[in-house]
């Protein structure tokens, strides 16, 4: 269940601050490490927030059962922002000033991240493993308190466009982009534009169609793509699952055939597949999703462990890409916390994280950070949805 916070009132805040002033080192601080999470737990994207939270919770619970980290228990408090960046700032302030969290983990939503990062940087709390590949989370050199587990949108879109051009033989000029009309969509589009430029095609000529965040109003986008369908070979989608599913449904209903349809990982592949399968046979088959984690159904040691823990600590949850992403991020964070030693504060943990090199968590690639590198993983995996809404691996090389 979401531990939604009550509306923050002046009295509550004053009490919280008074408590902080009176006992700067409370017993709870010694005994536990509190992390916050912000994301959609209401509204049309709530399953995304819930999946990521499940993954983080499960990894924390397993670690706590193994004795915690250097004697401290891990706790997660999740706050709903309804996928509206206008609400993210308040949620983040509540967490870092009201709850005095050690860091924020698994934030869901690129526009929200844009709001949250300056707040985290200003207070000096960790902003770890956001579910976003946006380049503003990957500055060069990287922001001290911002750490990413996953590959960037640039890496995801470069991989998929390369696949469309080299394997599927679709000319780069025949690739359209369907995006959410915000920082998430812009970040994805920027990635496509960059790789298209690499192929010496003009990004200004890419057909870009949009929908509004937190809606599934895709009619205009469908109409535009259907109208231009004969000039197109593929649509790269930078959308969340509800809108993506409607868009695909609309194209299929308009009898637009022969277009390769691809999604970035943030779509929530499992939700998208389920949604499409519900529309009936023929909607789901062949839709591609790039992933920043291995298949949650893989037989690899670490993924078996993930599913064991999921069964044990979240018996109602099914394995999924977003929950696996949250779980791996939490594992990586735990490694940094362990290395920082007993009683470590944020600064020590940042230094410890920057000292992780070539860590093999069994997720298909060694993970590492450094003062110049705050993104641990770079690979992108391909998956394709089958007629019944299952997800199969797809070789993108």
């Amino acid at each position, binding site marked *: 269940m979401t531990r939604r916070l009550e509306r923050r009132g002046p009295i509550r805040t004053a009490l919280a601050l008074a408590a902080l002033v009176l006992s700067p080192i409370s017993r709870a601080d010694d005994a536990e490490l509190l992390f916050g999470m912000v994301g959609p737990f209401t509204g049309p994207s709530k399953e995304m927030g819930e999946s990521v939270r499940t993954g983080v919770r499960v990894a924390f619970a397993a670690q706590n059962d193994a004795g915690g980290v250097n004697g401290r228990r891990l706790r997660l408090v999740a706050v709903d922002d309804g996928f509206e960046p206008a609400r993210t700032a308040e949620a983040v302030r509540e967490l870092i000033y009201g709850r005095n969290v050690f860091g924020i983990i698994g934030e869901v939503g690129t526009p929200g991240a844009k709001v949250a990062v300056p707040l985290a*940087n200003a207070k000096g709390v960790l902003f770890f493993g956001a579910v976003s590949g946006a*380049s503003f989370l990957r*500055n*060069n*050199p*990287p*922001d*001290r*308190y*911002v750490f990413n587990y996953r590959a960037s949108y640039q890496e995801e879109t470069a991989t998929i466009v390369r696949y469309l051009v080299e394997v599927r033989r679709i000319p780069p000029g025949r690739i359209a982009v369907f995006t959410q009309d915000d920082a998430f969509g812009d970040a994805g589009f920027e990635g496509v534009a*960059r790789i298209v*430029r690499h192929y010496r095609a*003009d990004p*200004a000529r890419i057909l870009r169609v949009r929908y509004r965040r937190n809606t599934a109003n895709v009619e205009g986008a469908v109409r535009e793509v259907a109208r231009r369908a004969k000039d197109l070979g593929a649509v790269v989608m930078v959308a969340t699952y509800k809108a993506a599913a409607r868009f695909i449904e609309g194209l299929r209903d308009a009898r637009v055939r022969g277009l390769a349809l691809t999604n970035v990982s943030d779509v929530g592949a499992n939700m998208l597949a389920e949604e499409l399968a519900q529309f009936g046979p023929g909607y789901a088959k062949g839709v591609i999703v790039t992933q920043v984690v291995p298949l949650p159904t893989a037989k690899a040691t670490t993924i078996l462990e993930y599913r064991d823990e999921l069964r044990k600590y979240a018996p109602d949850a099914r394995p999924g890409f977003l929950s696996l992403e949250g779980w791996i991020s939490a594992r990586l964070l735990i490694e940094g916390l362990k290395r920082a030693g007993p009683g470590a504060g944020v600064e020590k943990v*940042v230094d410890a994280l*920057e000292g992780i090199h070539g860590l093999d968590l069994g997720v298909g690639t060694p993970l590492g950070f*450094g*003062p*110049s*590198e705050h993104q641990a993983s770079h690979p992108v995996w391909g998956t394709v949805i089958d007629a019944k809404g299952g997800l199969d691996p797809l070789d993108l090389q």
Partner: protein
Amino acid sequence: MAAPYAGQQNAVFFGPLSGADLLRKNPPDRHVFNFRASLAAEAAAAVRYLVEVRRIDPKRIATLEQDDDFGASGRRGAIRQLGTYGVSEASVLKLTYPRNTADVRQAIARLKERAGDVDAVVMTATYKPAATFVRRGKDLGLKLFYTTVSADSGGLSEELVLSGQGYTDDVLLTQVVPVPTSPASTLIRYRKALEKYSPGEKPGSTSLEAWIGAQIFIEGLRRAGRDLDTAKLVSALESIQNLDLGIGGMISFGPNEHQGSHMVWGWLLQPDGSYKQVSLE
């Protein structure tokens, strides 16, 4: 001048604030070590940005440079990059101005004659002549994109903001260090050191460049150990490989490589005089 003298005296010449070619021979002078990317690399990165990101026709890029070795180093980098797009050196309009002046009248006059052939100018200039050239170009109503090498960023923006609305448009500054106000670990450390040892001094790209150079030099001294002499220091510096100082790229030296960093950043001038870091690729 100073580098040969240091060599004669068997002294190390470390981290000059210069990207000139004469400090970057191949193989490198034993006594000369550089931290920063070369002027040629900066100008080449600017050309790449104009062509790849701004989609400007490489045949329509001109250069403006100071009439000395500083200017020549930048021009060489621009020409080398333009060569990869099939543009010959002879066809690249070359504008110059006299060293230690902001006298760009002749350059502007020549630009005016050839205005129909030019969409962008890659400048290897100090801030004052660079700002003057941009201002006069805009006064002529020419719609051009301007890039300039790591000049004094504050001076350049001040000059152009003062000139009025629109003068800051389409101006890119290349830099060999990250943004001094970045929230990266190392930049936080730099600002703390500045606050402590030079209170009142504002963070800036020049002091940052010198600070990073000093960090590398200290690493060399540390590796050289006790009983320091020049030979030991040179060997110690040449042993630095993939040193991560947290500036976004690794620092490496070697017997064949006396330039630690090859990184070039792009700063796009904003109407309020600030800069926005942009990707050059």
